[in-house]
C-alpha cells in the first residue's frame, strides 16, 4: 500500500501524484492531460502517474511493453521545460533512471544510446518521451518502464529484472515504486545543466569507442564503430565514409 499523501510533502519538483490500478497506458493518460491544458490554456501540473498494470503499454514505434500487474514500474512524468532544454531530456532521464537503479539496488546499470537501461547487456528499463511545444514551452510526457520481477512465460530473451540482478537489496514492488518516485523527483528538481547531463551520460554508457554498431532508420542503415555522443546528444558513428551523427533509429550492437 502506497500512501501518496505521505510521499508528496517530500517531493520538490513533482506537485501531484496518482497511483492507478490499471490503465491502457500512462503516457496516454498524460497526453490527455497535456492536450487539455494546452486547449484550455492552463499551466501543466508537474505530476507523475503510476499504474499497477498497463493494458497497452508501448515503446518506440508502438512496440508493446509488457506491463503485467505487480511486475514492474509503469510511470509517466509530466514536465515543462523550455524548448531549448527539451532536446537533452531523453539523456537526462536515462541518467536519472540509471542512478536510481545503481543507488537503490546496487545494480551495475548502463545506458544504451539513447536511453535504454541495461544490466549485464540485457534491458532493465526503457524510456519514451512524447512532447508538444507551445510558444517556446515544451510539455513533456516522460514514460518509463522498469522491469522489477520476472513474468511467467516471458518471451523477452534480452530482458532482465531488478529482482534478478539486485540480489538481496530488492524488497518488493511498493518499495521500488516509492524509491523511483523520489529519485525521479530529485533528478528533475536538480535541473542539471547540459554539460552535466552529457558528462553523466558518458560516464554511464555501455558504449565504448570502437565498438561495432549499426543504426537503421526506415530502410537506411549506417554501420561502423561507436565514436561518441555530440553536444546535441546524437550518436556519432565512424564509417568508412566519415562520421555520421544519428538522432533517431534503432541502434544495434554486436
Amino acid at each position, binding site marked *: 500500500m502506497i500512501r501518496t499523501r505521505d510521499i508528496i510533502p517530500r517531493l520538490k519538483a513533482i506537485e501531484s501524484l496518482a497511483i492507478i490500478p490499471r490503465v491502457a497506458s500512462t503516457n496516454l493518460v498524460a497526453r490527455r492531460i497535456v492536450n487539455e491544458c*494546452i*486547449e484550455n490554456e492552463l499551466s501543466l501540473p508537474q505530476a507523475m502517474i503510476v499504474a499497477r498494470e498497463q493494458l497497452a503499454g508501448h515503446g*518506440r*514505434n*508502438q512496440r508493446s511493453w509488457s506491463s503485467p500487474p505487480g511486475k514492474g514500474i509503469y510511470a509517466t512524468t509530466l514536465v515543462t521545460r523550455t*524548448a531549448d532544454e*527539451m*532536446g537533452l*531530456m*531523453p*539523456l537526462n532521464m536515462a541518467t536519472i533512471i540509471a542512478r536510481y537503479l545503481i543507488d537503490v539496488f546496487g545494480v551495475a546499470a548502463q545506458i544504451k*544510446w*539513447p*536511453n535504454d537501461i541495461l544490466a549485464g547487456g540485457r534491458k532493465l528499463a526503457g*524510456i*519514451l*518521451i*512524447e*512532447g*508538444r*511545444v*507551445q510558444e517556446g514551452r*515544451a510539455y*513533456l510526457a516522460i514514460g518509463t518502464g522498469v522491469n522489477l520481477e520476472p513474468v511467467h512465460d516471458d518471451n523477452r530473451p534480452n530482458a532482465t529484472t531488478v529482482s534478478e540482478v539486485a540480489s538481496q537489496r530488492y524488497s518488493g514492488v511498493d518499495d521500488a515504486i516509492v524509491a523511483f518516485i523520489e529519485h525521479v523527483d530529485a533528478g528533475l528538481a536538480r535541473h542539471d545543466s547540459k554539460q552535466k547531463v552529457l558528462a553523466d551520460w558518458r560516464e554511464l554508457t555501455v558504449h565504448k569507442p570502437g565498438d561495432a554498431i549499426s543504426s537503421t*532508420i*526506415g530502410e*537506411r542503415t*549506417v554501420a561502423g564503430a561507436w565514436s561518441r555522443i555530440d553536444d*546535441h*546528444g*546524437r550518436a556519432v558513428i565512424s564509417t568508412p565514409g566519415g*562520421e*555520421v*551523427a*544519428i*538522432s*533517431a*533509429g534503432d541502434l544495434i550492437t554486436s
Partner: protein
Amino acid sequence: MNFKEILELIDKVADRGIASVEVERAGTKVRIEGKQSQPQVIHSYVTEGRHEAAGAPAPMPSPAPAAASAPAPAPEESEAGLHIITSPIVGTFYRAANPESEAFVNVGDKVSKGKVLCIIEAMKLMNEIEADSDGTLVKIYPQNGQPVEYGEKLFAVRV
C-alpha cells in the same frame, strides 16, 4: 498576395467593368474575369519550386528526391506570403505517428492552429509539431524519415 488583396482586386475589376485581369506575384497567380457585375476568381495556384536545404547540411545523407510526377509550369520558388514552420529541434522527421498510420497532413489540407503536422524524433523524444496558425498546407519540405536541423523548414502554410 494575400486574401485581402485578392478581394480588393475583385472589387476593382467589378467597379471598372474590366473583362479580365491576371496577376502573378511572389509565386501566386490569380486570374479574375469580370462578367457583368459579378467577377469570379477562376483560378489561383502557387507555383511549386525546388527546395534548397537551409542552414547547415544534414549530417546524414538525405535520400534521393523522388522523381517529379508533374513538373510545375513555373519552377522558380517563392515563399513570399507563406507562413513557414521550422523545426524546433535537431531530429528525424516523420509524417505519421508510426509506420502503419496515415500521414498527419497532406499538401492541400486545411489546417487549423494546434493541428499536429508531424513528429520530429530526437533520441526517443517524439515531438509533435503543430500548426501555429490557420491556413492551407502548400508545401512539405523534408522527406519522411529525413534528418532535419534546428530551424530547418518543415511546412509552408498559406494563411
